[in-house]
């Protein structure tokens, strides 16, 4: 078998935390001594975290995969002929593209993730990068907005608001603001605060395919008339920070970003600002305050950020995934994107499998399959091997779904009907050993810890919520406390200023409703309380 020319070792945070860095160093030394012609490429991750560190070698048959490889296993793998594309080693997984877990996904946004060297503009362009932007530079703002509208793309940050409508508002918003030093400007703000536990899709975009995000933001700028963008980045993402900074510099040097992009006469500047490390700073109005250097505090809407956002000027605030979907949409057309999915849930959604799950990682799918297919077919059930008890979808503010709801189709409307949300696509699995009353308490406690404190239902309600659940657990006047909890949930839902307090009832109520035993509610007692 011939020697391979290229070996890929992922450089993303997850792979590195599993030893990819050590592998890359060992391998580097090895190549220098034994195979100086063989290139070591630090690709991004494909998001198959259960296979990380996932090594790939470039062969005539395509890229062959090995994983998960630990640094200790590397010498053995090398000895077995890694650099010749051995098919004999136990870690050999076959051609990457044939791994069913990957093959069965519909990767539009994550098509390049793990394939390319994240920082190579050449690689990016070879794989379809900047085609959308090239096109966008010759389109009118309205045509761009129309294309996004046609795609049916909805915000992937949680609220699922149609991106095209938001863009239209910003496009139409007057930017003169006499007296404001920023008068005349509009801004694109990328929400990269990724606060939901168990989610990582934003990070994966930034670490594995940063130019895609940059391209999406530039297109957004062209569409609404903004010449400046901010990426508000979660402070716990140092690697993404480093990659983004480098990518921005390279994109500027290559004339894809900055003044007079590609000789078009159009400008777009991009700046990364680090988040304040609070969950609430992912909420868009709070994010804008934080971006401006103030304490992140939720602002009442209206005014919408689209009309009065960053520095008081019209602003698009979109999640990383929303903006990252844009280059594909402009390249292939809104209709092509809308051809995926169903109903009002169009395109694809990057789901993130985490928690007690056998095969965790990023699964990008067109909307439509059921939750069960996702966690069983892709996730392979629990890692502990015990039966699944509950699945929390959509982050810490999402509902716990019991087995009876696992056949719900992955689609915004279907989830809403089930009293649940898709949110940012986080899917966390719990097995039957988990105490759901503690999970409900945890949800209130999370709200208590993360509340910005502005509105009363959330600020005081979350504290009382924890206390009430404690009393329920302790069987202290349980029936009355359960009623009180139900009323508190209503107060928080209807009374809270933002979704932090407003959605905390989701996990709490779903736990109480679907797992009554955990709260000591027997059929008789619930009949009494009803």
């Amino acid at each position, binding site marked *: 078998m011939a020697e391979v020319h290229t070996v890929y070792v992922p450089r993303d945070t997850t792979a590195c935390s599993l030893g990819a860095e050590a592998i890359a160093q060992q391998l580097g030394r090895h190549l220098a001594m034994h195979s100086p012609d063989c290139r070591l490429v630090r690709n991004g991750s494909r998001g198959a975290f259960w296979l990380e560190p996932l090594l790939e070698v470039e062969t005539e048959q395509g890229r062959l995969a090995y994983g998960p490889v630990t640094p200790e296993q590397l010498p053995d793998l090398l000895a077995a002929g890694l650099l010749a594309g051995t098919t004999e080693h136990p870690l050999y997984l076959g051609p990457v593209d044939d791994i069913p877990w990957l093959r069965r996904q519909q990767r539009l946004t994550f098509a390049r993730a793990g394939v390319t060297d994240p920082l190579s503009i050449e690689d990016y362009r070879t794989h379809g990068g900047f085609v959308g932007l090239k096109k966008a530079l010759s389109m009118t703002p309205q045509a761009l907005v129309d294309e996004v509208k046609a795609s049916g793309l909805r915000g992937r940050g949680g609220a699922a608001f149609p991106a095209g409508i938001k863009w239209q508002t910003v496009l139409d918003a007057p930017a003169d603001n006499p*007296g404001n*030093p920023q008068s005349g400007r509009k801004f694109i703000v990328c929400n990269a605060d990724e606060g939901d536990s168990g989610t990582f899709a934003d990070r994966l975009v930034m670490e594995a395919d940063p130019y895609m995000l940059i391209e999406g933001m530039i297109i957004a700028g062209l569409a609404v008339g903004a010449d400046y963008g901010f990426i508000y980045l979660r402070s716990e993402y140092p690697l993404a920070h480093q990659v983004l900074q480098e990518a921005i510099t390279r994109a500027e040097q290559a004339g894809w970003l900055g003044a007079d992009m590609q000789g078009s006469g159009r400008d777009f500047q991009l700046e990364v600002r680090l988040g304040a490390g609070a969950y609430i700073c992912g909420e868009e109005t709070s994010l804008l305050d934080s971006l401006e250097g103030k304490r992140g505090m939720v602002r*009442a809407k209206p005014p919408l950020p689209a009309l009065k956002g960053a520095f008081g000027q019209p602003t698009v605030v979109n999640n990383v995934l929303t903006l990252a979907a844009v280059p594909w949409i402009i390249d292939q057309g809104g209709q092509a994107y809308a051809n995926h999915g169903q109903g009002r849930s169009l395109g694809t959604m990057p789901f993130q499998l985490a928690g007690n799950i056998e095969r965790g990682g990023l699964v990008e799918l067109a909307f439509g399959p059921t939750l069960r297919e996702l966690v069983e077919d892709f996730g392979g059930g629990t890692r502990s091997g015990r039966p699944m008890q509950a699945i929390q979808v959509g982050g810490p503010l999402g509902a716990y779904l019991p087995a009876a709801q696992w056949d719900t189709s992955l689609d915004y409307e279907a989830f809403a009907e089930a009293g649940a949300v898709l949110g940012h696509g986080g899917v966390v699995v719990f097995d039957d050993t988990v105490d759901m009353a503690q999970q409900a308490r945890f949800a209130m406690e999370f709200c208590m810890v993360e509340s910005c*404190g*502005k509105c009363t*239902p959330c600020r005081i*309600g979350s504290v009382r919520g924890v206390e009430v659940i404690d009393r329920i657990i302790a069987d202290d006047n349980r029936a009355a406390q359960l009623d009180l909890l139900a009323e508190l949930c209503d107060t928080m839902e*209807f*009374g809270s200023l933002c979704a932090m307090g407003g959605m905390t009832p989701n996990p709490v109520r779903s736990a109480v409703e679907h797992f009554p035993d955990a709260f000591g509610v027997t059929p008789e007692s619930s009949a009494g309380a009803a």
Partner: protein
Amino acid sequence: MLNYFDPKTEHTGAGSAIDWTRDYGTPAVDSDVQVSLDIDGVAVTVPEGTSVLRAAALAGINIPKLCASDNLEAFGSCRLCAVQIDGRRGMPASCTTPVAEGMAVTTQNAALAKLRRNVMELYISDHPLDCLTCPANGDCELQDMAGAVGLREVRYGFSGENHLQAEKDHSNPYFSFDPSKCIVCSRCVRACEEVQGTFALTIDGRGFDSKVAAGQDEPFMDSECVSCGACVQACPTSTLMEKSIIDEGQPDHSVVTTCAYCGVGCSFEAEMKGDKLVRMTPWKGGDANHGHSCVKGRFAFGYATHKDRLREPMIRDSIDLPWRAVSWEEAIQFTADRIRDIQTRHGRDSVGGITSSRCTNEETYLVQKLVRAAFGNNNTDTCARVCHSPTGYGLKTTLGESAGTQTFDSVMKSDVIVVIGANPTDAHPVFASRLRKRLRQGASLIVADPRHIDLLKTPHMGEGIHLPLRPGTNVALINAMAHVVVSEGLEDEDFVSRRCDPEAYRQWREFILLEKNSPEHMETITGVPADSIRQAARLYGEAGNGAIYYGLGVTEHSQGSTMVIGIANLAMATGNIGREGVGVNPLRGQNNVQGSCDMGSFPHELPGYQHVGVPEVRARFSAAWGVDIDPEPGLRIPNMFDAAIDGSFKALYVQGEDIAQSDPNTQHVEQALTSLECLIVQDIFLNETAKFAHVLLPGSTFLEKNGTFTNAERRINRVRKVMAPVAGKEDWEVTQDLANALGYPMHYSHPSEIMDEIAQLAPTFTGVSYDKLERLGSIQWPCNEAHPDGTPTMHEDSFPIGLGRFGLTEFVETEERTNRRFPLLLTTGRILSQYNVGAQTRRTDNQVWHDEDVLELHPHDAEERGISAGDWVGITSRAGDTVLRARISERMQPGVIYTTFHHPGSGANVITTDNSDWATNCPEYKVTAVQVEKVTEPSSWQQRHQTFGRRQWQYLEQASDA
């Protein structure tokens, strides 16, 4: 029997339906577009942008609320004001929801009631249950709302996490902070930001730990808090509470009146318990202050009942004798006899009077009338002589009227704001707050001042340029700015050709274009880089609306009048006159400087700025007053002093003025006062001047009388009596008694009758009456047939003199120059907590902020002389010397030192000289060449002053004992 004015019943219907005692939840919105909606079945039409909460309130529908207040932007945190809107999901907060055409709103139903009750239940689960003993009992919005939503139980119990043990902060002398009562509505924080503009308060911590914190979570007194009271006013509970209310309980009635401190003229509700004043609350209906206040007006009223108040008339034959307390009759007769005797012996012109800028218009009018009609001469002058007389002269010659051109609100339409020789955050704090608000909205600021004043440090403001000129070089600076405007084509040619006298303009233009007026040339004089001047001139010249505000740093110079003319020239040349957002605006020091000038206090002008030399004018006054008016202008204050020392001026009646402390060259003033045969002082305290007096007539404070004050924007505001005068008479009654005793009859039964007489005689006042003031709240003169409701903006179509007149403003260096002996320049000013000579504020807890005048100097000057902070330093000028403690300050530029004159023992005016404005004799307080050195004991003047003062206090005590 006092007549209480009750604005709650009387003020409504004054052209607007706004009831100032109500809180409409969110601020009024100005829009041409009207939106109609349906609230609980009631059709409501309001300006676009109005909140649903306010729209409902305007329709008389009260939606519960806690965090909303109509002087703060909507915040949306309490969630009590939730409503339901047809076709919309959920229960949006009505404070943050703007109205929309055709919207149908429900404010009350079972679901909303339940939500509100449950939110209230959460509040109360973290609130002490001591309502009955709480100082806010009876005035607590939380209590009211708990009642409104029908809270009956707290199912969470009270054993959960709470803030009931939070520690109190009593550091501020006027209010307490009790965080255990706090509901974290942020109203105080927002008031500090939006209303006051200081940003001293924040919410510290997140979630349940959120709490109000002053500064870096320090006691209020250690923070940047300026004690304006806006937070206390905003607090819906007793978290921030006046100590007077904690001690006394809730007031039982209130009267709207006007503050007697600075020229802003804030309206307050004097809140009373019987005849005791327990709280001054800024009145939202006040046109000058719109419900805001400063530490002086809000809290420093304790002097009115201070033990030092003079309570009985007193007389003596010599200042070396103890006082004799006598009846009013005896005192008045004694005085009249003395005056007549002196006039018989020394001639009619040997006596005179000084009116006060702190007394009412009516009182001032009466004093000058007394001088003119009963004394029979024009020897009347006023303390405006020493502050804003150049404004009168300069504005009258250029624009034709001795007054500022704008309303305070005008600043909200300015794009570029120039502040020259004024320190509004200290001296005109309530106006400064509005100015800062405009700066936060993005207006640019240019400050021409030797000091880096606090306005330049306005949080969140846009562009700010500081022109740190050398004291005494104002005219050079304004000429250089005008030079840039003219040479760079930034003039408003249209305005100049339509509105200004062409010949005067041509001459001025020619003059100003001379190379000697260029910024480059003037740089050596002013010390301000030419580039900065050019930048500032361009900014102002190119502004849509450029406004100039100035203070005593302009007038109190040898070229004070020239500078005022220069300012008017610049405004005319750029067309910044005659509409909102522009203008020339003197910031008046004392509450009624404008009024005392209007009322004919000056020796050459009868009320309404009518010259005594004009026969027709005299004829009208003679007819009204039944006496002949002397055609010759009388003596100005400095002339009176000189004449007294010469022996030709023998008796002086001083009402509410402390010339011995406030006038320059104290030793000269003292010499003049000791030369008098009869000094009659009418004042509320034994002030410095009174120590030289032969007659003491106890005065009444603004709380003890009726009348009017006219503020810096020409606004006539009512002063209403809330308590009986401590010595039994309002000041105007005393003047009237004296006139009668002198044989000149006066028979007014109420100040309104005096105002009626003023209206007959002063052309700019013809439409003013107490009835109209009652109806409109306040009136800005001119108020006459052409402007029946007053004139907010002057000179809209033409000037009173027809065409505006440019005046030539040659820069002439003051004679007060530094040299080897006196290498430093001393400039004087004032600070926030003390007022003028301090007679009032020193008798309040404001002392905690400033209990002594200190000398500020730059570290460089201090270092050179081996002076450290806190050292005693001697300050010597050509006029005298005094000793103050040193403070080292970067606000100063090297070579310039600064002090205040709030404390008599400081002797700040012992050092200031006789130099004065060439046109008006306004003293050159702002420039004195001095030397300073480290010393170990007070100056000899200070020692003498102390001994003399102590003796005079003994004389007073002996009288009281008798």
